[in-house]
């Protein structure tokens, strides 16, 4: 069980309010991702849930019990840190055993859980090594192993993959998702990477400057961003946000068109522009189109075989039914 509820939770450091009072519920078994630009308060929020920071106001309950004043160790949560935070003087086995040793679980049970975790995480051959003798990916696995053996009611991940190289990151991402499916335990995952958020989450919480901008499933956020910030943050490449006369044509202050929702043609279309940089990914090609008079640059996603060159004049036509409209406050117009 691991339902986590935040009611009017706030945090200030001195006079600086980093998290204004907010409400949030994470359901049992859910994979929730806190995402936002750096300094948005997502890590602080996670640390409040963990109990590593004291709240300045509000209550945090875990499975319906008020946990606001409970010390981190007693909350039944496990955390995986960005820096892995392994104990450098202990072997992998001792690292993984540490929380069980603190909980005074008997040795046979400890060994059983260590074996099981090591097997699931491909660490069996490394149990007697020190963290310093492991690669980054292996260290991260040890950190996850240390979290699993506690059988926590929820896992907290604080940017766990940002110290890994790109290839490893994709692999570990899948492993964590599989682990979630297998354990069916609540997970809260903090990242600044919206691709991680989109691919992993059941529920994404988009944060900016301590405020929750939107909560929803990845596709909800993609299809109906509540405001300009979410629209620009979710989706890669970024949505093209256009202001001015073109937006007024749609009775909006700002309109947003995703790069994948624009058709590119040679002959005729709604907007005319010049091709700048073309990024060929093979499957797709991203064109950066200039001189449209709409904004500095419009990004367009075209199929991989479309090949315009730098300086070519092209025509762009947005798909009418997927133009997002926002008012002057940046809020979505339904």
């Amino acid at each position: 069980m691991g339902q986590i509820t935040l009611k009017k939770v706030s945090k200030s450091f001195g006079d600086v309010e980093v998290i204004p009072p907010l409400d949030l519920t994470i359901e049992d078994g859910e994979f929730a991702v806190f995402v936002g630009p750096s300094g948005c308060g997502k890590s602080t929020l996670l640390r409040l849930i963990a109990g590593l920071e004291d709240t300045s106001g509000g209550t945090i309950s875990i499975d319906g019990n008020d946990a606001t004043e409970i010390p981190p160790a007693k909350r039944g949560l496990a955390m995986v840190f960005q820096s892995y935070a392994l104990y450098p003087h202990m072997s992998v086995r001792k690292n993984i055993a540490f929380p069980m040793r603190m909980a005074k679980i008997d040795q046979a049970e400890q060994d059983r859980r260590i074996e099981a975790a090591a097997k699931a995480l491909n660490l069996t051959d490394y149990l007697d090594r020190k963290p310093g003798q492991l690669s980054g990916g292996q260290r991260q696995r040890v950190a996850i192993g240390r979290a699993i053996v506690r059988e926590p009611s929820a896992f907290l991940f604080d940017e766990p993959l940002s110290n890994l190289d790109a290839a490893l990151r994709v692999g570990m991402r899948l492993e964590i998702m599989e682990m979630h499916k297998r354990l069916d335990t609540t997970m809260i995952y903090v990242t600044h990477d919206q691709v991680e958020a989109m691919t992993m989450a059941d529920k994404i919480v988009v944060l900016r400057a301590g405020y929750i901008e939107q909560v929803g499933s990845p596709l909800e956020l993609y299809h109906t961003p509540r405001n300009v910030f979410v629209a620009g943050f979710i989706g890669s490449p970024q949505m093209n946000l256009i202001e001015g006369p073109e937006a007024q044509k749609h009775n909006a202050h700002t309109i947003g068109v995703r790069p994948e929702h624009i058709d590119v043609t040679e002959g005729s279309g709604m907007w005319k522009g010049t091709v700048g940089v073309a990024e060929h990914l093979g499957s797709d090609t991203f064109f950066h189109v200039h001189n449209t008079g709409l904004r500095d640059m419009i990004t367009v996603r075209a199929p991989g075989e479309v090949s315009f060159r730098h300086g070519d004049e092209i025509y762009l036509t947005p798909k009418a039914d997927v133009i997002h409209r926002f008012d002057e406050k940046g809020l979505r117009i339904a």
Partner: protein
Amino acid sequence: MARAVTNNRKALNTAIAWTIGLVIFFPILWTILTSFKTEAQAISDPPVFLFFDWTLENYSVVQERSNYMRFLWNSVIIAGGSTILGIIIAVPAAWSMAFVPSRRTKDILLWMLSTKMLPAVGVLYPIYLIFIKLGILDSRIGLTIILMLINLPIIVWMLYTYFREIPGEILEAARMDGASLREEIMYVLTPMAIPGIASTMLLNFILAWNEAFWTLNLTAAKAAPLTAFIASYSSPEGLFYAKLSAASTMAIAPVLILGWFSQKQLVRGLTFGAVK
């Protein structure tokens, strides 16, 4: 990356380093040499350096006249005891300053260090009276406590510096893993800080071993350590350089040997944190 240094430059640096080392070591070397001379050769002018009649006579006289082992034992107990006591008090103190600092932490650290700027003789009288009142004058326990107290600021300061190097996330991980404060300090912080703690202990042991002001003033016969043993050879009957040197050599030998074997640890400890 290492800077490119020419061979000539390297030789020059080596020569300079050796010269400085020898100048610093010379008094100790001279003391050791003098301890093997006769009293006449010890004060001869011009001084003789190596070509004298080597003799062990001074050592046997010193050994006959006073009980070296008793002084040595007092020194070991006082220096060792004050070091261990100091560490037990300083580890939690340094932990709190390093990991849960308050607005006044820096002030407290400075204030603690400022006690070292006070001339010790300024508080000799009150402390002497307190020692009489408590009945711990000329006792090992009294000296252990006073030496622990005068070195405590240095121990706390050094440990604080080492602890600051330990990433806070590791301690937070221990907290998440269910460690109590005591377990966090015992199983995670202390083992990680072992190099720092070892060199702090070593330095503190040497400081306590060599401390003369309090050991001379607060002891008579019972608890007198090796510093008092040396001092007893600059007596009113006149100076006996050779015997004084023999006594000094015997007094510094244990700590010199200890320092020699642990110099790697000591250097690492003293430069810890200077380079990552």
